[in-house]
């Protein structure tokens, strides 16, 4: 066929769809704003629910795009896509233009900026960290409080930046619950004498093996779960983090002290995705992610024929779903060219 397809973003969705496109015989260009591919996967330690090392998946994805039909352009941010006579022109920050017959947008997500939940004191109190930072600590093997102590009591705050009108995000980020469970287990493994508490509103374990992991966290690792949205965090005179929450299942307010608090940050439409949407006339939904053409059978399509979406740029998604979504985007691309013939 020798058609050219451009993939915007070299995260998991971008790499997987590029590989599939190449399998279908297309020549592919991937644009990545970072200096290397991998997206958020780069910062991750172990993946849920089977605790596989993220490097394994990363290696798989790097193998997928390591072929002559695929050209990877890093440090290149796409600012605009326009359609002219059935062909697409992609503009980058370097003001270069590239032509393509079809586009797959895989601009992914940004993590919620935790400073916006001021009451949790992120950026104010030292030992309030995000789930992404904790992954890095695991990866680097330095699970420590800022003063060098090994944390003995760690709390996980669920739904930071998700399901919260106060920060404008009404949706559930889906993977924070299971991430918290996984990280709680890992804390217990790293520091066996530690106590770990998760503060949740609902434990949403809607994936294969998730509920089992949740159960294991209780049975094998003794992770504690307290139902209530954390109201505020402060630091006391001893430097401990004081947390206020209602233990809703007994209907009493609760005060607790922690060495470290982990904010389970949610997902938001990426800034680069937002810019692309505005410049290119791509529609976004109320949740600010790209609006798919149809919730059930058009989740890879948008409002411009020939521009397809894959992965977390359309909705919050875990890695399994992202990879599947990426492959189904390629199906839509194939179908697009078949229709055009």
């Amino acid at each position, binding site marked *: 066929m020798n058609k050219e397809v451009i993939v915007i973003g070299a995260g998991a969705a971008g790499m997987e769809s590029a590989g599939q496109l190449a399998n279908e015989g297309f020549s592919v260009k991937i644009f990545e704003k970072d200096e290397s591919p991998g997206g958020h996967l780069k910062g991750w330690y172990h993946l849920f629910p089977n605790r596989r090392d993220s490097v394994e998946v990363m290696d798989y994805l790097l193998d997928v795009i390591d072929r002559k039909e695929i050209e990877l352009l890093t440090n290149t941010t796409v600012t605009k896509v326009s359609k002219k006579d059935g062909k697409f022109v992609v503009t980058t920050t370097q003001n270069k233009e590239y032509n393509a017959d079809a586009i797959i947008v895989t601009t992914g997500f940004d993590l919620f900026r935790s400073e916006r939940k001021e009451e949790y004191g992120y950026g104010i109190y030292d030992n309030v960290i995000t789930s992404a930072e904790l992954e890095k600590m695991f990866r680097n093997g330095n699970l420590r409080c800022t003063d060098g102590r090994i944390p003995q009591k760690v709390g996980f705050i669920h739904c930071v930046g998700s399901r919260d009108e106060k920060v404008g995000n009404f949706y559930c980020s889906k993977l924070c619950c299971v991430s918290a469970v996984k990280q709680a287990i890992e804390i217990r493994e790293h520091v066996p004498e530690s106590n770990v508490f998760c503060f949740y509103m609902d434990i949403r374990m809607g994936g294969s093996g998730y509920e089992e992991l949740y159960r294991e966290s*209780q049975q094998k690792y003794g992770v504690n779960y307290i139902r209530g949205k954390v109201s505020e965090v402060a630091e006391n005179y001893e430097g401990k983090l004081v947390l206020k929450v209602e233990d809703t*299942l*007994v209907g009493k*307010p609760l005060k607790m002290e922690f060495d470290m608090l982990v904010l389970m940050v949610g997902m938001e439409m990426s800034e680069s995705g937002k810019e692309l949407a505005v410049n290119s006339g791509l529609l976004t939904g109320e949740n600010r992610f790209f609006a798919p053409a149809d919730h059930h059978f058009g989740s890879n399509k948008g409002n411009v024929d020939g521009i397809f979406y894959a992965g977390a740029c359309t909705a919050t998604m875990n890695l399994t779903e992202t990879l599947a979504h990426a492959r189904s985007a390629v199906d839509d691309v194939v179908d697009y060219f078949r229709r055009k013939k």
Partner: protein
Amino acid sequence: MSDFGYVLLKNRHIDYEANDKRIAEYIYAREPSFGYCMECGCCAGTCTSGNFTHLSLREINILIKRGETSTIKEQIDKCMLCGKCTLVCPRGVNTRNIIILAGEAIQKLEANEL
């Protein structure tokens, strides 16, 4: 000291750090399923005593873990130990034994033996 017609009130917060969690430790050591509860409330729903009063085994499970000793004491007395809770629990929590152990622990606590 002066009387102003009102008094200082006791803080109702569960003060986790200050609370005595020996009862929970006593139970954890003897009944590991104590930690398996996912607070579904099945036990409280089927409870024979709960049919008549506000006894909630689910709440008791939590209160023990938080060290709210006085409330636990008053609540577990209401249990009739009929065992329906244990039968319906989806997580296999031996609720009945938890109640019995809590009773034991409280006795010991009061006798300064814990």
